[in-house]
């Protein structure tokens, strides 16, 4: 799941929980899912990195992504 989707799911879970209209069992299941999503998202964040590359076009109009010269 993409980070963006996780964040959206977490937002939806929080909203549902905050609505106060859930049965206890449903609320607890959602909470559990939320905790799982939070952990996955936090994991993803610690692995985040910025890559810098360069686009190069071949003579035939196709593309290469290459490492830029320093």
């Amino acid at each position: 799941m993409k980070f963006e989707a996780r964040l959206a799911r977490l937002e939806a879970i929080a909203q549902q929980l905050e609505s106060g209209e859930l049965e206890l069992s449903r609320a607890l299941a959602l909470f559990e899912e939320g905790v799982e999503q939070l952990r996955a998202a936090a994991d993803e964040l610690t692995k985040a990195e910025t890559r810098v590359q360069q686009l190069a076009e071949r003579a035939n109009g196709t593309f290469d992504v290459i490492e830029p010269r320093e």
Partner: protein
Amino acid sequence: MTPRRAPRGAEGSDLDLFAPDSPPPPPPSPAPRTPSTRRSARPPEPERADAYPGETAQSAVTVSMLAQAAHDVIEGAFIPLWVRGEVSDFKAHRNGHWYFSLRDRTAQIKCVVWSRDQRGVPASPDDGMQVSAFGRLSVYAARGEMQFTVVRIEAEGDGLRRKALERTRARLEADGLLAPERKRPLPRFPRVIAVVTSLDGAALHDIVAVLRRRAANVRLIIVPAKVQGDSAPLELCAALDRVNRWGKADLVIIGRGGGGREDLWAFNDERVARAVAACDVPTISAVGHEVDMSICDLVADVRAPTPSAAAEAATRSRAELQSELKKLSLRMGSAARATVRHESDRLRHLQRDVAAASAELVQRRRSDLQDVAGRLHALSPLSTLARGYAVARDEQGATLSDVAAFRDDMPFDLVVRDGVVPARVRRRGSTPGNPEAT
């Protein structure tokens, strides 16, 4: 009028101001300073075989030769230079060339800008503008006029650039490219950001630095292009086109670091603006510093004051996202706790309700019982006994109410008001059919 070659080099030796059938230039004369003084100093003498061209009526030069000589003298005497004056009689001819005069209070000179030299001029000057024009002085033989051949014009207060900007802006506006409703929102989490800028410029350096500092989870794809100079507009357009054809970017940043007005000029080019508008993905324009506003900025979906600001607008930092996760976690936790609290409150209420209901039930049953007891009491034989009657019961407690129930010698109990009297049936015989109690 046919387009003529414009003077390029300092020598002007390849000039050809004459019509194709005009005679070749005259032999170089021994450089008379001014033909008029020469003529007055040396009246013509007829019939001299060795007379130099123009010395006598017989050796008269042609008009063309004279004009060419004047041309050569003028071109040889002036290097290209800047001339200041006011523009008047401006005319953009349909052949593509511009004609106007430069004047001050006491003199004027005819000027021309060949169409191919107009690239060096942001916009055509208007009558009345104070300008400085760079070019070289020449002679237009067909009219016998001096002509200043202009290749660059700078207007006072940068008027020409402002005029060019306004025109470009008006054209883009007419095509709806500046409409606010065209602005697309930026993706919240772009994975691939294309940056169209110069490989060795400050902009790229700043953008990379910001992304690394923020630990943004992105791939930055550099799409190199020159950002200043004559070839910059086309290179920028080509780079933007490449981004579209590659098709994998979520977002494009186009820009460059700060520089002089002229350095930033490529970003005011209409072709670049249209290429930005034609981008398939949202665009951020970051040209120069805060104060620099370019046409490219107007067309892009978002205008960032600097390349660094563009990088910040495009991405979200790790710290920012972590705090967002923290907030979500707090919200979920307190909502879940509230739900649990709510449920346990409900449970407590239920308990109380059940207890209250059962107490009430017991109470009701009790009063029902008393009711029945009262009614039972009314029916009880005990009250009859109290009035002096007795009841006979056999040893099992069954009521003996018929004579036939009494057998000879049978023991039984006689229940009276205040107790039980043991008794026995006497042998019958004396009074048949009437057993006798003892």
